[in-house]
């Protein structure tokens, strides 16, 4: 693209000053050694560097430093908060364990009390039942004894009557006194 430039420039060369002569002479070789363009490049480079320096040092770098510092402090705070929460969790677990042990002891106490109460009630009921049973048994025994006594009397009366009948039937007369004595003697035997 520059060869065209060179041709035109060579034609116009005569019209230009000494600086341009130097420019054209070196343009034939390395453009890097074309000293005629140096003031231009250096001027714009300095402008560029100054602009970049002010943009970076006044705005960008403080901003990035601020963001990095903020992030660092956020991370530090978060780690501290996490540490605190962890501590709280440990404490909560301890409290839970203590509460659990207490609850367990309480439950055991309540169970023991209930057991004792039930046992006492049971014992009382059993004793009462025993009393009732023994009273009933005594009553029954008495009734049985009465019935037995009644039965013996009846047997005696039946035996007397039967004996009197039998004796009369056989034609023999016996007084009541001797019959009773005989029956009593037999009943004992």
């Amino acid at each position, binding site marked *: *693209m*520059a*060869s*065209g*430039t060179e041709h*035109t*420039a060579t034609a*116009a060369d005569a019209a*230009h*000053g000494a*600086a*341009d002569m130097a*420019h054209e002479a070196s*343009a034939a070789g*390395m*453009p*890097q*050694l*074309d000293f*005629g*363009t*140096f*003031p*231009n*490049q*250096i*001027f*714009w*480079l*300095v*402008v*560029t*560097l100054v*602009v*970049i*320096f002010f*943009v*970076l*040092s006044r*705005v*960008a*770098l403080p*901003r*990035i*430093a*601020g*963001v*990095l510092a*903020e*992030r660092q402090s*956020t991370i530090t705070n978060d780690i501290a908060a996490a540490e605190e929460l962890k501590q709280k969790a440990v404490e909560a677990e301890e409290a839970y364990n203590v509460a659990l042990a207490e609850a367990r002891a309480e439950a055991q106490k309540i169970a023991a009390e209930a057991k004792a109460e039930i046992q006492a009630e049971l014992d009382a009921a059993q004793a009462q039942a025993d009393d009732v049973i023994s009273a009933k048994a005594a009553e029954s025994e008495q009734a049985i004894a009465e019935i037995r006594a009644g039965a013996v009397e009846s047997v005696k009366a039946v035996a007397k009557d039967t004996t009197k009948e039998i004796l009369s039937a056989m034609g023999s007369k016996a007084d009541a006194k001797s019959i009773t004595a005989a029956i009593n003697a037999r009943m004992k035997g």
Partner: protein
Amino acid sequence: MATETAHGEETGGLVFHPLDQFIVKPLFGGDGPIHWYTITNVTLWLAIAVLAIIALFIFGTRGRAVVPSRTQSIAEVLYGFTYKMVEDVAGKDAVKFFPYIFTVFMFILFSNYLGLIPTSFAPTSHFAVTGVLAITVFLTVTIVGFVKNGLGFLSLFWVSSAPLVLRPVLAVIELISYFVRPVSHSIRLGGNIMAGHAVMKVFAGFAAIAAISPVAVLSITAVYGLEMLVAGVQAYVFTILTVVYLKDALHPAH
């Protein structure tokens, strides 16, 4: 490009103009003389570099987000990388030079990468530009060295760990190497960028021959990949050397 092709056809053969891409020419007003204030293609690409830097570092970070966006992350990574480099290499007291070093680094980085856009112009391929950067670094470092350490800065050239007889000889060598620094500093950057761009242009010239054009195109691709690497590495090398020189100025003792 069009004139170049025309020129090639004119002579009826293979003509290379690998250095034409570096020619500084006015943007407006044809081929008039280039004064110091003339707006040229250099001005244009320097301005584009400035706009790109503003786009990344001002608009990219305008959210000031604690959880950064993508562009803010890039800005932060560049900031953190450079800041750590300055702090690690030159020490805590060099941190006040960080904005200056960051400016130089970002300017070279953006110019190098913008220069890789086809038909663009790479200001860092010019010794006028890299020379000014290197001389500025040289002057800054020398002035800082004398202001901070007084005449003690001269101990940089007096290798106290060497045998006494050797010290004057080493002092001469150290002194020469000190003054050669801006030369090597600027030519390393300018030369690398210029050579890469010129090589690509030479391969592009070969692409005009049908028989070897596939090879030429593949070569351009390969060299372009290499230049992507070189653009970053050379910006980094220039910056880290600046930081190392600054360390010498702040802590001259060997």
